[in-house]
Structure formats: structure tokens, C-alpha cells
């Protein structure tokens, strides 16, 4: 019985040429138009004009001669030799991270005093101020050497209006501090092993010395790896972005058609006829869920395939893309149920029309279908990235950028949560007005 409903709903959509034009042809055309016009601005998002930032270096050089470190070192059998040069972790950040060729294309930094930096930030002339406090170098060194280190902090002040740029700067600083943390963890593990296992203590002690010296040397292999991960994200072009943008927008139109067809069935009294048969409301709704799921999945596959055929866009990981399509389709199918139930529950309110003409454009804007949400205020970004179409878009773009699927779990969960909310609302409405159902 459920399958009969599913097939009937799919057949109705297939026979509805106007609907097919709207859910398939329009997004394809808009992808081409927007991709070719607005998308030019996005072409090679790796070529975003340099992001101006200020570095405030308030640090003093670190020294192994610090009494607390010395007392810790002298407990060991093989004291670590103090390096010849000053230990300056900030220099490492400047020379090895910001001076890197690829990062340099992206970040334009200047070392300033705190007052100068804040003036520029207030005047919106720079995107962020990264401040290394006075004790930074010593704290990092202490963290690396001692078993109970101090907490190390890097302060970052950002211009709230520049979301995308902020994210890039934040990512840079995070990758740097993450690398430092890794070194500390490695050291702690080694120290623990040394304490627990005397026979290998000497050997490990030598290895640790080597590792520490390597950390202080200018040949920072770990930083190199981290930088690579940052630039490893494939930049996507306008056609790619708008393929996803239009797909997630027009999947909402597909959901709205569920409401349109319900309204049609009420007008034609086929719904009453179905209700008077052996079919329950749950058969009807599950059938509609499955049909919307199939149609939405097909719609997404067709739109991405058309873009691939016409513009040879890169899909990223195909399996990840298919997974996102499936998850998005589940969300859309839940929305279709919600719209259907609301239409049945309150037939006098033209919910489909309101959804199509007001809500979809609004959600599309909020979710980033027209312009990236990175340009919107943070709170709006947060909402946009968590509504069904916005979260789907984030996931699609992420897959095309080569982001591992694990890192997209936030967006996937957001889409599914949207679906759960839609289904809960639907169930509530069904139980609230049993006579209609």
C-alpha cells in the first residue's frame, strides 16, 4: 500500500511538466547564469585578495636557565643542552607560517604595537590582531619541558564583519597552536615512559633531546605538514558553488510540491476517497516521504550530473557526495511531510504558496544559495549554516573542496536534525486534529 502511494506520487510529478521545469530546468539555468556572472568573483577562491592582519609581539625570549626548568631538568640523568640561539616561537610563526609562499598570497601581515594594531582594527583596515603575550615563549618552552606546564595563550581580536577572512586567520593560528600542543603531548608521553621503564630511559632521553632540538631548529617539518592541509582544500569555482546552491534551493521547491499535490487531492476529493479506503494516514505520509526522498535524490543527481557534463565540475569524493545527497533528500522528504500535514491541518492557509513565494527565497538567501554566508553577520551565518538548505550546501561545498566526510558530520547532523524537527511537528499536527487524518 505504501509503495502504491509512492509510485502514485512519483507518477504525478513525472506527468507534471510544469513541476519538472521548475525543479530541474530552472536550477540548471540559474546555475549557469549565476555561475557565469556572480561566480566569476569566486573563481579561485584561493585568490581572495590578501587578508591584512597585525601581529603584536610582546614576548621576551625563552630561556632554559629559568630556575623552575633547571630544577626539573637536573632531576634527569641526561640533562638537555641549552640551544645556542634564543628560543623564539613567535619567530617560527612569522618565518615559517606567514612567510610561507602560499600563505603569503593569502595573508598580508605587519608587526605592530598593540595600540597601532587596535587603531587599524577599529578603523576596519585590518581583519585581525594576533597578540603573543610577554610570557608566550617561556610558557611554550615550559610546556615542552616540564610535566605540569602553564597554559599557553595566543590572543586574537577580529573584525566581526569579515567572516570568511576571520575563518582563514583563525585556521592559521589554530594550526600553529595545535602543532605546539602535539609537541607537548609527545613530550609528556615520553616522560611518562621514561619514568615507568628504566632500561629504555637513556635511549628515550637521547631521542627526546633530538626531538626537542629539532623542534627548536628552523627546519619545522610539522608546520610544513599543517600548512599543506590548509592549502590542500581544493578551491571551487562559481559553477560548482551554484550547482550546490541551486540544488539545495530547488530541493525546497520539490518539498513544496508535496503540499501542492495534497491540496490538489483535497480539492479533487481523492484524499477523502483514500481515507475511506483501507489505507491509513500513515500509509499516505510514509508513501509521500519515500516519493519525496526518491524525487529529491534524483533531482540532486541530475543537477550535479548536468553540471559535470556541461562544465566538467569536480565532485570531490563521489561516495561522500552521494551520502550528502541521500541525507539532504531525507531532510527534504521530512519537510515535504511537514508541508503536506500542515496543508491538511489548515487548508485555509495557502502554506504552499507562502512557502514557495516567501520562505524559499528567504531560506535560500540565509542558507547561502545566492551569496556565501561568510559575508553575513556571525549570528546569521550560524542560523544559515544550520537550516536544512544551508547545512546541505555546506556539506556539498565541503565535499567538492575535498574536506573529509568526518569533518562534515556537523552539517550532516544539522540536516538530519532539521528532518527530525519537521517529523515531530508533523506528528504533533496529526495527533492534534485526528478528524482530518
Amino acid at each position, binding site marked *: 500500500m505504501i509503495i502504491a502511494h509512492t509510485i*502514485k506520487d512519483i507518477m504525478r510529478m513525472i506527468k507534471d511538466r510544469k513541476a519538472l521545469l521548475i525543479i530541474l530546468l530552472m536550477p540548471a539555468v540559474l546555475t549557469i547564469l549565476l555561475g557565469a556572472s556572480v561566480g566569476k568573483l569566486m573563481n579561485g577562491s584561493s585568490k581572495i585578495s590578501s587578508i591584512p592582519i597585525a601581529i603584536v609581539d610582546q614576548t621576551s625570549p625563552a630561556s632554559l636557565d629559568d630556575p623552575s626548568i633547571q630544577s626539573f631538568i637536573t632531576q634527569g640523568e641526561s640533562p638537555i643542552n641549552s640551544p645556542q640561539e634564543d628560543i623564539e616561537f613567535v619567530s617560527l610563526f612569522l618565518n615559517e607560517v606567514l612567510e610561507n609562499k602560499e600563505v603569503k598570497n593569502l595573508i598580508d601581515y605587519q608587526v605592530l604595537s598593540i595600540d597601532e594594531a587596535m587603531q587599524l582594527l577599529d578603523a576596519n583596515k585590518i581583519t585581525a590582531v594576533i597578540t603573543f603575550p610577554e610570557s608566550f615563549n617561556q610558557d611554550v618552552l615550559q610546556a615542552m619541558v616540564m610535566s605540569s606546564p602553564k597554559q599557553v595563550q595566543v590572543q586574537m581580536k577580529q573584525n566581526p564583519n569579515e567572516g570568511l577572512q576571520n575563518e582563514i586567520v583563525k585556521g592559521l593560528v589554530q594550526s600553529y597552536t595545535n602543532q605546539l600542543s602535539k609537541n607537548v603531548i609527545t613530550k609528556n608521553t615520553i616522560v611518562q615512559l621514561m619514568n615507568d621503564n628504566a632500561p629504555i630511559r637513556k635511549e628515550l632521553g637521547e631521542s627526546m633531546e633530538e626531538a626537542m632540538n629539532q623542534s627548536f631548529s628552523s627546519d619545522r617539518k610539522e608546520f610544513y605538514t599543517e600548512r599543506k592541509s590548509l592549502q590542500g582544500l581544493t578551491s571551487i569555482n562559481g559553477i560548482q558553488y551554484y550547482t550546490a546552491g541551486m540544488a539545495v534551493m530547488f530541493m525546497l521547491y520539490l518539498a513544496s510540491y508535496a503540499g501542492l499535490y495534497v491540496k490538489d487531492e483535497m480539492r479533487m476529493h*481523492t484524499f*477523502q*476517497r483514500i*481515507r475511506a*479506503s*483501507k489505507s491509513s494516514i500513515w500509509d499516505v505520509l510514509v508513501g509521500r516521504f519515500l516519493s519525496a526522498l526518491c524525487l529529491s535524490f534524483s533531482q540532486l543527481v541530475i543537477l550535479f550530473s548536468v553540471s559535470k557534463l556541461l562544465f566538467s565540475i569536480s565532485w570531490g569524493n563521489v561516495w561522500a557526495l552521494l551520502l550528502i545527497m541521500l541525507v539532504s533528500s531525507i531532510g527534504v522528504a521530512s519537510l515535504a511531510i511537514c508541508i503536506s500535514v500542515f496543508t491538511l491541518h489548515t487548508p485555509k492557509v495557502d502554506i504552499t504558496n507562502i512557502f514557495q513565494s516567501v520562505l524559499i527565497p528567504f531560506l535560500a538567501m540565509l542558507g547561502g544559495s545566492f551569496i556565501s554566508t561568510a559575508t553575513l553577520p556571525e549570528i546569521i551565518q550560524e542560523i544559515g549554516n544550520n537550516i536544512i538548505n544551508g547545512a546541505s550546501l555546506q556539506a556539498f561545498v565541503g565535499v567538492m573542496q575535498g574536506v573529509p566526510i568526518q569533518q562534515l558530520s556537523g552539517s550532516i547532523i544539522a540536516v538530519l536534525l532539521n528532518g527530525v524537527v519537521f517529523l515531530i511537528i508533523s506528528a504533533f499536527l496529526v495527533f492534534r486534529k485526528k478528524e482530518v487524518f
Partner: protein
Amino acid sequence: MFLEIRDLHKKFHKHCAVQNVNLSIDKGEVLGLLGPNGAGKSTTISMISTLLLPTDGDILFKETSVVEKPQQIRDILGYVPQEIALYPEFTALENLHFFAKMYKVPRKNRVDRIQEVLQLVGLTDRATEKIETYSGGMKRRLNIACALVHKPELLILDEPTVGIDPQSRNHILQMVKQLSKDGMTIIYTSHYMEEVEFLCDRIAIMDNGEIIALGTKEALTNVVEQQDVMTIRAIPVKTTFKEQIEQLEDVTYVNCKDNSYDIGIKQGADLLPEVFTIAQNLEVRILHVEVKTPRLEDVFLYLTGKTLRDA
């Protein structure tokens, strides 16, 4: 008892659409619900079909409450709504297949059963055409076919002949008559007197949500058997003419529409001279006079003071 309706009430906000309806239907019986638009016929059958919940009262199908266990009656019910409840973009076959699945007609019987009902409604030749290409009468017949595809025990038809050509109407009436002969229990609503007279074993006349008379055609006409109906056509139309006739002894009612007057008079009373005198005094010219024995229409008029089509 096959179907029993007890003290049925249905309110929509403050409006009482159905009140105090009590009915019982035996297996194989054809019951007609007769009444003007808005009388409560469709609301009553919607409640029997489990599409609406009664505000009060109960409907028992084979002693089981339909309100509490709607599936009980849905299993044996064929419901033909007043509207063409079909998918216009589908062919007749596709519509029949879909509704056959809704009624859980077993796969092995489905095709045969669909062919049977197509033959019954005379649409075998057009079965593969989209129904948006059908005439009104063909759509009506298919509308009925979809309710028959699972061989229901109880068939409810809500004004199934509205707005169709005489040929299709006749086809439908003959088909319903045949189904009745085959033993199907039928509830047939209409505001066409002659259809109800032709098809139904018993008739319930409804007005303003209530059953105002119930019985066989003969029993109902007996209500007014003590009177004749005089029909006069006269010009010009004058309110005073109607009022003066109403005041005559032996006149039970007068109903005026355009230039036509239906006058209920006690059987055997000779009122013609008095009516002609009134006409002469008021300078009204009588064009036509006819005295007839009462029919259902007159029963309705007698009971409600209005004709079915006026109401």
C-alpha cells in the same frame, strides 16, 4: 441490523449540520436520502463513511461502532463522492489500479476485477486514455467504477448523476439498479425525486439537518393522500393573489414560483370557482390549471413548505 444510526449530530462551530438522525438499513436494501442542497445528506454520509466524526451519537455497523472502529466499515465500503474524485492526469486503468491497491484487492484478481468494472460502466474501449479527455458522464461512471473495484458490501453514492447527460445518467441508474438486484446494500443521495423513486426501497427526506420523513415511497405519499395538488399558471404575479388563495378554506399550502402556483387542497374540494373569482377581482389572468395526485415532490412541499429546487 446491517447499519444503524443513533441520534447522530454534527456541529460545525455554531452551525448544526445534522441533528437527531436515526436510521437503520438492512442488508441488500437501497435507502434514498432525499433533500435539497445543504439539507445534511452529504454530512450524514461523510460520517457513515468515517470521513467525519459525529459531534454526538453513533453509527453501528453489524453492532460495532464505526466511530470507535472505523476500519470495520472501511473494509466493506465503496464510497462515491459527489465530486469526480480521480486523478485527471492518469488513465482510467491507472486510476483503477491505484484504488484497487487502496482497497487491497489481491494482485492475482486485480486485472480481472478491473476489467469487470470497466465493462460494468461501459469504459473498456477508453480504459487507456487519460481521464482529462473524458466527458462528464464518462468521468462519473469511472468515479463509480473506482468504488466498485473491491466488490463492496455497502455502496454509498453521493449525488452521482449531477451535471451529466441523460444517456450517462440512465446508464448509472440502470447500473445501480442491477447492483441492488445483485444484493448490494446502497445508500443513494440525490435531490432528483425521480431517481430516488426509481431506485430506492425506502426514502429518508432531510431538511435543515433533520430527517423529516422516512418510509417507502407509498408510505410517504400517504402522508399527503388526503389532498390533491392544483397547479395554476397566472399573470401578472401578485402577492395578494397568493395571500387570498391561502385564506380559502380547504387550502393547506400555496407555493409560488415565477408565475406558477402549487396549491394543496383537501381531496374532493372544489375550489376552482373561488380561485377564478379572486383572479378576476385582482385582474389576474389564469393561463393554465391542472389538478394531480401527489408525488414525493409534493410530500416535500407539504412537509417543508418549499420545493426541492427552491430549498
